Protein backbone atom coordinates (compact mmCIF):
# COMPACT_ATOMS: atom_id res chain seq x y z
CA UNK A 1 0.00 0.00 0.00
CA UNK A 2 1.69 3.15 -1.15
CA UNK A 3 1.04 6.69 -0.06
CA UNK A 4 -0.26 7.48 -3.51
CA UNK A 5 -3.08 4.98 -3.28
CA UNK A 6 -4.00 6.34 0.16
CA UNK A 7 -3.95 9.85 -1.26
CA UNK A 8 -6.45 9.35 -4.06
CA UNK A 9 -8.74 7.42 -1.72
CA UNK A 10 -8.65 10.32 0.73
CA UNK A 11 -9.46 12.79 -2.02
CA UNK A 12 -12.41 10.73 -3.29
CA UNK A 13 -13.80 10.43 0.25
CA UNK A 14 -13.26 14.20 0.53
CA UNK A 15 -15.35 14.68 -2.59
CA UNK A 16 -18.20 12.67 -1.03
CA UNK A 17 -17.91 14.85 2.07
CA UNK A 18 -18.04 17.94 -0.17
CA UNK A 19 -21.38 16.95 -1.68
CA UNK A 20 -22.92 16.32 1.75
CA UNK A 21 -21.44 19.52 3.21
CA UNK A 22 -22.70 21.52 0.26
CA UNK A 23 -26.20 20.15 0.87
CA UNK A 24 -26.14 21.39 4.45
CA UNK A 25 -24.54 24.75 3.65
CA UNK A 26 -26.95 25.40 0.81
CA UNK A 27 -30.04 24.67 2.90
CA UNK A 28 -28.98 25.98 6.33
CA UNK A 29 -25.98 28.26 5.68
CA UNK A 30 -27.10 30.25 2.64
CA UNK A 31 -30.31 31.66 4.22
CA UNK A 32 -28.15 33.04 7.05
CA UNK A 33 -25.69 34.54 4.55
CA UNK A 34 -28.56 36.18 2.66
CA UNK A 35 -30.01 37.63 5.84
CA UNK A 36 -26.60 38.93 6.87
CA UNK A 37 -26.18 40.62 3.49
CA UNK A 38 -29.70 42.09 3.80
CA UNK A 39 -28.68 43.52 7.18
CA UNK A 40 -25.51 44.98 5.67
CA UNK A 41 -27.45 46.53 2.78
CA UNK A 42 -30.01 48.06 5.16
CA UNK A 43 -27.19 49.53 7.28
CA UNK A 44 -25.45 50.99 4.21
CA UNK A 45 -28.69 52.49 2.92
CA UNK A 46 -29.51 54.05 6.29
CA UNK A 47 -26.01 55.56 6.40
CA UNK A 48 -26.31 56.92 2.86
CA UNK A 49 -29.72 58.40 3.64
CA UNK A 50 -28.39 60.08 6.80
CA UNK A 51 -25.50 61.61 4.82
CA UNK A 52 -27.91 62.75 2.12
CA UNK A 53 -30.26 64.38 4.65
CA UNK A 54 -27.39 66.05 6.49
CA UNK A 55 -26.09 67.55 3.25
CA UNK A 56 -29.55 68.82 2.25
CA UNK A 57 -30.07 70.35 5.70
CA UNK A 58 -26.81 72.30 5.29
CA UNK A 59 -27.89 73.47 1.86
CA UNK A 60 -25.15 71.54 0.07
CA UNK A 61 -25.43 69.24 -2.88
CA UNK A 62 -26.10 65.71 -1.63
CA UNK A 63 -23.26 63.23 -2.25
CA UNK A 64 -23.73 61.00 -5.25
CA UNK A 65 -24.94 57.53 -4.40
CA UNK A 66 -22.21 55.05 -5.22
CA UNK A 67 -23.43 51.96 -6.90
CA UNK A 68 -21.26 49.03 -5.90
CA UNK A 69 -20.77 46.86 -8.91
CA UNK A 70 -21.16 43.16 -8.31
CA UNK A 71 -18.17 41.20 -9.59
CA UNK A 72 -19.93 37.90 -9.00
CA UNK A 73 -23.70 37.75 -8.66
CA UNK A 74 -25.33 36.40 -5.50
CA UNK A 75 -26.80 33.32 -7.23
CA UNK A 76 -23.34 32.40 -8.51
CA UNK A 77 -21.76 33.00 -5.08
CA UNK A 78 -24.36 30.87 -3.36
CA UNK A 79 -24.46 28.21 -6.07
CA UNK A 80 -21.50 27.17 -8.19
CA UNK A 81 -19.14 29.41 -6.19
CA UNK A 82 -20.12 27.80 -2.91
CA UNK A 83 -19.93 24.34 -4.46
CA UNK A 84 -16.48 24.99 -5.92
CA UNK A 85 -15.10 26.39 -2.68
CA UNK A 86 -16.52 23.60 -0.56
CA UNK A 87 -15.31 20.96 -3.00
CA UNK A 88 -11.76 22.30 -3.26
CA UNK A 89 -11.59 22.57 0.53
CA UNK A 90 -12.99 19.09 1.23
CA UNK A 91 -10.94 17.33 -1.45
CA UNK A 92 -7.81 19.13 -0.24
CA UNK A 93 -8.54 18.11 3.34
CA UNK A 94 -9.17 14.55 2.12
CA UNK A 95 -5.67 14.61 0.66
CA UNK A 96 -4.13 16.12 3.79
CA UNK A 97 -6.00 13.57 5.89
CA UNK A 98 -4.60 10.72 3.80
CA UNK A 99 -1.07 12.12 4.15
CA UNK A 100 -1.50 12.43 7.91
CA UNK A 101 -2.78 8.87 7.98
CA UNK A 102 0.23 7.66 5.95
CA UNK A 103 2.57 9.14 8.56
CA UNK A 104 0.60 8.31 11.68
CA UNK A 105 -0.68 4.82 10.91
CA UNK A 106 1.43 2.35 12.92
CA UNK A 107 3.19 5.24 14.70
CA UNK A 108 0.35 6.69 16.79
CA UNK A 109 -0.28 3.34 18.46
CA UNK A 110 -1.30 -0.20 17.71
CA UNK A 111 -4.59 0.70 16.04
CA UNK A 112 -6.25 -0.84 13.03
CA UNK A 113 -6.56 1.34 9.92
CA UNK A 114 -10.20 2.00 10.74
CA UNK A 115 -9.47 3.02 14.33
CA UNK A 116 -6.47 5.12 13.25
CA UNK A 117 -8.58 7.03 10.75
CA UNK A 118 -11.32 7.63 13.31
CA UNK A 119 -8.84 8.89 15.93
CA UNK A 120 -7.09 11.17 13.42
CA UNK A 121 -10.49 12.57 12.38
CA UNK A 122 -11.62 13.27 15.95
CA UNK A 123 -8.28 14.86 16.83
CA UNK A 124 -8.25 16.85 13.58
CA UNK A 125 -11.81 18.11 13.99
CA UNK A 126 -11.06 19.35 17.51
CA UNK A 127 -7.62 20.78 16.76
CA UNK A 128 -8.20 22.29 13.31
CA UNK A 129 -11.78 23.54 13.61
CA UNK A 130 -13.49 23.38 17.01
CA UNK A 131 -10.81 24.99 19.17
CA UNK A 132 -9.79 27.76 16.71
CA UNK A 133 -13.44 28.82 16.19
CA UNK A 134 -14.16 28.77 19.92
CA UNK A 135 -11.66 31.63 20.11
CA UNK A 136 -12.35 33.20 16.72
CA UNK A 137 -15.83 32.14 15.56
CA UNK A 138 -16.88 31.97 11.93
CA UNK A 139 -18.56 35.21 10.89
CA UNK A 140 -21.17 35.91 8.21
CA UNK A 141 -20.82 38.77 5.72
CA UNK A 142 -21.20 42.28 7.22
CA UNK A 143 -19.34 41.19 10.35
CA UNK A 144 -15.72 42.23 10.19
CA UNK A 145 -13.79 45.38 9.49
CA UNK A 146 -11.94 45.20 6.13
CA UNK A 147 -9.01 47.10 7.66
CA UNK A 148 -8.28 44.32 10.13
CA UNK A 149 -8.34 41.40 7.68
CA UNK A 150 -4.54 41.00 7.91
CA UNK A 151 -4.58 40.82 11.69
CA UNK A 152 -7.65 38.58 11.78
CA UNK A 153 -6.16 36.14 9.28
CA UNK A 154 -2.88 36.02 11.19
CA UNK A 155 -4.44 35.37 14.59
CA UNK A 156 -6.90 32.83 13.19
CA UNK A 157 -4.17 30.75 11.56
CA UNK A 158 -1.95 31.35 14.58
CA UNK A 159 -4.59 29.88 16.87
CA UNK A 160 -5.07 26.98 14.45
CA UNK A 161 -1.35 26.14 14.39
CA UNK A 162 -1.01 26.42 18.17
CA UNK A 163 -4.00 24.14 18.61
CA UNK A 164 -2.63 21.59 16.14
CA UNK A 165 0.81 21.65 17.77
CA UNK A 166 -0.84 21.16 21.18
CA UNK A 167 -2.76 18.17 19.86
CA UNK A 168 0.41 16.54 18.53
CA UNK A 169 2.16 17.20 21.84
CA UNK A 170 -0.78 15.75 23.76
CA UNK A 171 -0.70 12.57 21.69
CA UNK A 172 3.04 12.24 22.33
CA UNK A 173 2.53 12.64 26.07
CA UNK A 174 -0.28 10.08 25.99
CA UNK A 175 1.80 7.51 24.10
CA UNK A 176 4.81 7.96 26.37
CA UNK A 177 2.71 7.34 29.46
CA UNK A 178 0.59 4.51 28.14
CA UNK A 179 2.87 1.68 29.38
CA UNK A 180 3.16 3.29 32.79
CA UNK A 181 -0.41 4.45 33.44
CA UNK A 182 -2.51 2.30 31.16
CA UNK A 183 -4.55 3.49 28.18
CA UNK A 184 -7.33 5.23 30.13
CA UNK A 185 -5.21 7.33 32.47
CA UNK A 186 -2.62 8.13 29.81
CA UNK A 187 -5.41 9.40 27.54
CA UNK A 188 -6.76 11.55 30.38
CA UNK A 189 -3.32 13.07 30.94
CA UNK A 190 -2.94 13.70 27.20
CA UNK A 191 -6.36 15.34 27.10
CA UNK A 192 -5.48 17.52 30.07
CA UNK A 193 -2.25 18.60 28.38
CA UNK A 194 -4.18 19.66 25.28
CA UNK A 195 -6.87 21.44 27.28
CA UNK A 196 -4.45 23.40 29.46
CA UNK A 197 -2.33 24.37 26.46
CA UNK A 198 -5.18 25.64 24.27
CA UNK A 199 -6.88 27.49 27.14
CA UNK A 200 -3.57 29.23 27.88
CA UNK A 201 -3.09 30.10 24.18
CA UNK A 202 -6.69 31.30 23.83
CA UNK A 203 -6.25 33.59 26.84
CA UNK A 204 -2.95 34.91 25.51
CA UNK A 205 -4.19 35.61 21.97
CA UNK A 206 -5.84 39.01 21.38
CA UNK A 207 -9.62 39.24 21.76
CA UNK A 208 -11.72 40.05 18.71
CA UNK A 209 -15.32 41.10 18.33
CA UNK A 210 -16.46 42.93 15.24
CA UNK A 211 -20.14 42.01 15.30
CA UNK A 212 -21.96 45.27 14.56
CA UNK A 213 -24.59 46.64 16.95
CA UNK A 214 -28.05 45.39 16.15
CA UNK A 215 -26.89 42.37 14.17
CA UNK A 216 -29.57 39.67 14.64
CA UNK A 217 -28.32 37.06 17.09
CA UNK A 218 -30.42 34.33 15.50
CA UNK A 219 -28.72 34.85 12.12
CA UNK A 220 -25.31 34.69 13.77
CA UNK A 221 -26.22 31.46 15.57
CA UNK A 222 -27.68 29.85 12.45
CA UNK A 223 -24.63 30.81 10.43
CA UNK A 224 -22.21 29.39 12.97
CA UNK A 225 -24.22 26.17 13.39
CA UNK A 226 -24.21 25.66 9.62
CA UNK A 227 -20.44 26.18 9.62
CA UNK A 228 -19.99 23.71 12.49
CA UNK A 229 -22.28 21.18 10.82
CA UNK A 230 -20.36 21.29 7.55
CA UNK A 231 -17.07 20.66 9.35
CA UNK A 232 -18.60 17.87 11.42
CA UNK A 233 -19.79 16.24 8.19
CA UNK A 234 -16.36 16.54 6.58
CA UNK A 235 -14.41 15.06 9.49
CA UNK A 236 -16.97 12.32 10.11
CA UNK A 237 -17.03 11.23 6.48
CA UNK A 238 -13.23 11.32 6.30
CA UNK A 239 -12.79 9.41 9.55
CA UNK A 240 -15.36 6.72 8.90
CA UNK A 241 -15.37 6.52 5.11
CA UNK A 242 -11.61 6.59 4.59
CA UNK A 243 -11.12 4.21 7.51
CA UNK A 244 -13.47 1.55 6.20
CA UNK A 245 -12.12 1.79 2.67
CA UNK A 246 -8.49 1.59 3.73
CA UNK A 247 -9.16 -1.16 6.27
CA UNK A 248 -10.20 -3.43 3.43
CA UNK A 249 -7.04 -2.95 1.44
CA UNK A 250 -4.50 -2.33 4.20
CA UNK A 251 -5.39 -5.10 6.63
CA UNK A 252 -7.16 -7.85 4.72
CA UNK A 253 -5.97 -10.42 7.27
CA UNK A 254 -7.40 -9.33 10.58
CA UNK A 255 -7.33 -12.42 12.73
CA UNK A 256 -3.93 -13.73 11.80
CA UNK A 257 -2.48 -16.13 9.33
CA UNK A 258 -3.30 -19.73 9.07
CA UNK A 259 -0.21 -21.67 9.87
CA UNK A 260 0.38 -25.29 9.38
CA UNK A 261 2.80 -27.22 11.54
Amino acid at each position, binding site marked *: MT*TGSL*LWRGMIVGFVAAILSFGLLKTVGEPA*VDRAIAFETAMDEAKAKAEHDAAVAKGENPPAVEQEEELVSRPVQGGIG*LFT*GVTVYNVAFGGLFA*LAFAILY*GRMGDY*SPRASAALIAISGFIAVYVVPILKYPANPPSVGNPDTIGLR*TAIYFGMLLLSLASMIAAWNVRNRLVDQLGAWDATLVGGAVYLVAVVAFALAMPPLNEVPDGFPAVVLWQFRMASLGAQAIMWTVLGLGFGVWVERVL*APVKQGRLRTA
Partner: protein
Amino acid sequence: MTNSYLAPTVGVTAIPLREVLPWLIFAGLICLLGVYFVGAEQGATAIFKGMYIHEFVHDSRHLLGFPCH
Protein backbone atom coordinates in the same frame (compact mmCIF):
# COMPACT_ATOMS: atom_id res chain seq x y z
CA MET B 1 4.29 -25.02 18.57
CA THR B 2 1.94 -27.23 16.72
CA ASN B 3 -1.15 -25.71 18.31
CA SER B 4 -0.44 -22.09 17.51
CA TYR B 5 -1.98 -22.11 14.11
CA LEU B 6 -3.53 -18.72 14.69
CA ALA B 7 -0.48 -16.59 15.17
CA PRO B 8 -1.40 -13.22 16.66
CA THR B 9 0.09 -11.17 13.90
CA VAL B 10 -0.06 -7.49 14.54
CA GLY B 11 -1.47 -6.03 11.38
CA VAL B 12 -0.06 -2.58 12.01
CA THR B 13 2.98 -1.85 9.88
CA ALA B 14 3.88 1.77 9.46
CA ILE B 15 4.61 3.02 5.96
CA PRO B 16 8.32 3.92 5.68
CA LEU B 17 8.79 7.67 5.97
CA ARG B 18 11.06 7.89 2.93
CA GLU B 19 8.18 6.44 0.93
CA VAL B 20 5.75 9.02 2.37
CA LEU B 21 8.05 12.04 2.11
CA PRO B 22 7.84 12.86 -1.64
CA TRP B 23 4.05 12.54 -1.51
CA LEU B 24 3.94 14.64 1.61
CA ILE B 25 5.88 17.45 0.00
CA PHE B 26 4.20 17.59 -3.40
CA ALA B 27 0.64 16.51 -2.65
CA GLY B 28 0.72 18.29 0.71
CA LEU B 29 1.74 21.52 -0.98
CA ILE B 30 -0.97 21.24 -3.63
CA CYS B 31 -3.63 20.50 -1.00
CA LEU B 32 -2.52 23.42 1.17
CA LEU B 33 -2.59 25.63 -1.92
CA GLY B 34 -6.19 24.54 -2.52
CA VAL B 35 -7.14 25.42 1.05
CA TYR B 36 -5.31 28.74 0.65
CA PHE B 37 -7.25 29.70 -2.47
CA VAL B 38 -10.57 28.96 -0.78
CA GLY B 39 -9.57 30.45 2.56
CA ALA B 40 -7.31 33.46 2.09
CA GLU B 41 -6.49 34.42 -1.56
CA GLN B 42 -7.31 38.06 -2.39
CA GLY B 43 -8.10 38.65 1.25
CA ALA B 44 -5.22 39.23 3.63
CA THR B 45 -2.78 38.37 0.87
CA ALA B 46 -2.98 37.83 -2.86
CA ILE B 47 -1.14 35.92 -5.58
CA PHE B 48 -3.42 37.17 -8.35
CA LYS B 49 -4.69 40.71 -8.77
CA GLY B 50 -8.34 41.61 -8.51
CA MET B 51 -11.13 40.22 -6.38
CA TYR B 52 -12.65 37.59 -8.62
CA ILE B 53 -11.45 34.50 -6.71
CA HIS B 54 -12.39 36.12 -3.40
CA GLU B 55 -15.89 36.94 -4.64
CA PHE B 56 -16.37 33.57 -6.34
CA VAL B 57 -15.58 31.48 -3.24
CA HIS B 58 -16.97 34.22 -0.95
CA ASP B 59 -19.79 32.22 0.66
CA SER B 60 -17.70 29.10 1.23
CA ARG B 61 -14.91 31.18 2.76
CA HIS B 62 -17.33 32.61 5.29
CA LEU B 63 -19.08 29.32 5.98
CA LEU B 64 -15.87 27.31 6.33
CA GLY B 65 -14.81 29.60 9.15
CA PHE B 66 -12.10 31.73 7.54
CA PRO B 67 -11.84 35.44 8.26
CA CYS B 68 -13.19 37.41 5.30
CA HIS B 69 -13.41 41.10 4.27
